[in-house]
């Protein structure tokens, strides 16, 4: 597999056309990526530091920023483990068993990806909002979901729902269940087999899914924006905090907050690349 793909590269290289065309195409691709990816990435930091490091740090040290960081971490810390548990259960189910409704389940897992984030927020407003189905009951018991932290967590759970299942399922399917069957034959329990045999086999897929899930959980804007109510320092996650500062013409503050999220994105890309590299070199 490896050797043949190397061979392939060498041979197609020879048939790749004249050098002028080659460099023209490379140049065009790099120019496009430069304008669309590199410049915006660099711009975040330059705008954040345009009034110096002092202004940058002052803005980050603001209590509202800290509250936003805490809320963002809280939402991610709840959403990622729950979706991880679901992702593992669903992958095990779909990869190892044939049952009625299997195709339907596969389709439905991807459903949140095809729902606009705004609609993801809306459905929870319709359920838990003041005019919603459960609104009167919640009001009676003095429970707050919409314009409060639980709503933000629910919206985050919804939009990050497919990530782990999506990455783990193909890995589990590709690896088959021979080792599991061997472990079970040798007398290992079901749970023990899953933790000691299955999980180590799919760990890179799991990690891949978790980092993508986490990036989306911390960066989600549309769904969270609808259910948040934008109460400063209470229901604002980092992306919402950046938006509020931007709308108040505090550009340094907005970009300082954005720079935290950008660092998170860059770390995500690095871990992602590392996982891809490890997954291909066992």
């Amino acid at each position, binding site marked *: 597999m490896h050797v043949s793909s190397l061979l392939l590269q060498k041979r197609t290289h020879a*048939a790749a056309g004249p050098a002028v065309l080659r460099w023209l195409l490379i140049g065009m691709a790099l120019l496009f990526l430069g304008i669309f990816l590199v410049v*915006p990435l660099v711009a975040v930091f330059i705008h954040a530091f345009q009034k110096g490091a002092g202004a940058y740090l002052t803005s980050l040290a603001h209590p509202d920023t800290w509250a936003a960081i805490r809320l963002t971490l809280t939402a991610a810390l709840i959403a990622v483990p729950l979706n991880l548990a*679901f992702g593992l*259960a669903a992958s*095990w189910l779909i990869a190892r068993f044939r049952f009625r409704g299997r195709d339907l389940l596969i389709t439905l897992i991807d*459903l949140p990806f095809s729902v606009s*984030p705004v609609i993801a927020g809306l459905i929870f407003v319709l359920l838990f909002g003041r005019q919603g189905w459960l609104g009167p009951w919640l009001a009676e018991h003095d429970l707050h979901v919409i314009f409060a932290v639980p709503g933000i967590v629910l919206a985050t759970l919804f939009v990050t729902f497919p990530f782990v299942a999506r990455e783990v399922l193909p890995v589990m399917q590709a690896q088959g269940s021979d080792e599991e*069957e061997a472990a079970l034959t040798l007398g290992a329990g*079901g749970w023990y087999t899953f933790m000691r045999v299955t999980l180590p086999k799919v760990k890179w897929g799991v990690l891949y899914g978790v980092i993508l899930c986490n990036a989306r959980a911390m960066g989600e804007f549309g769904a969270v924006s609808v259910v948040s109510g934008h109460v400063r320092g209470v229901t604002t996650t980092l992306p919402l905090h950046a938006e509020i500062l931007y709308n108040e013409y505090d550009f340094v503050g907005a970009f300082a907050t954005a720079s935290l999220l950008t660092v998170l994105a860059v770390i995500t*890309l690095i871990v992602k690349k590392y996982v891809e590299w490890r997954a291909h070199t066992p």
Partner: protein
Amino acid sequence: MAQRARRRILPGFGLSLGLSWFYLGLLVLLPLSGLFLKTFTLTWEHFWETVASPRAVAAYQLTFGASLVAALANAVFGLLVAWVLVRYRFPGKSLVDALVDLPFALPTAVAGLTLTSLYARNGWFGQYLEAAGIQVAYSWLGIVVALTFIGLPFVVRTVQPVLEDIDADVEEAAATLGATPWQTFAKVIFPSILPALLSGFTLALARAIGEYGSVVFISGNMPMRTEIVPLLIVTKLEQYDYAGATAIAVVMLTASFALLLAINLLQRWTQRRFEVRPG
């Protein structure tokens, strides 16, 4: 038959089945069905009035039009980037390859903020574009720029693996038979990557139609002119017009599901096409 035997050996069927459907039902299916139930509380006249109002129609046209243009731009440039990454060697290639995923990792609000600052009248790009008489930020074009950014990785990541799998023999055979490089590309390579290209295009399109975070900053949000459908839903919600927001959401969701169906059919077509080939 082997599957049936396995089902008896491997544990956890009941547990994982119950857990998966329970979680999916509670978090996704129940809330989504609430949306459709809500539309039934509207009278048909009210529903139609909301959904077909000039403001809503302008928003559909803008959202679908801008998404289509952005997805087309992504198809062209995505194919170019995938081609360059698979076929050529140049310094910094693996860095470029990693960078392609940036739009997936970067929060949409950050993308919106930074793109707006670049294309605004006094921005790095905006000042020159403005001098040339082109307004990007707070116009239709700005929405296209944001949606192109958001959808950039889809085509690259769907086309790349297919392009890697194309056998060099086929191309060499074409060349031996006297085909020019362009003919080889147009008649041999392009037909085999077309399903993946279409699949990536549809994914980018679906993503663009629902996109909110990056667009609200750069579009200027003027009703009838630069107001996208998701923003219209948010506006209606802020006015506590839940019924109106729901009506428009249902129209949009139906369009998204139609696209999802198209994606699935395309993927099945792609798989069938490549399963026939030996090796």
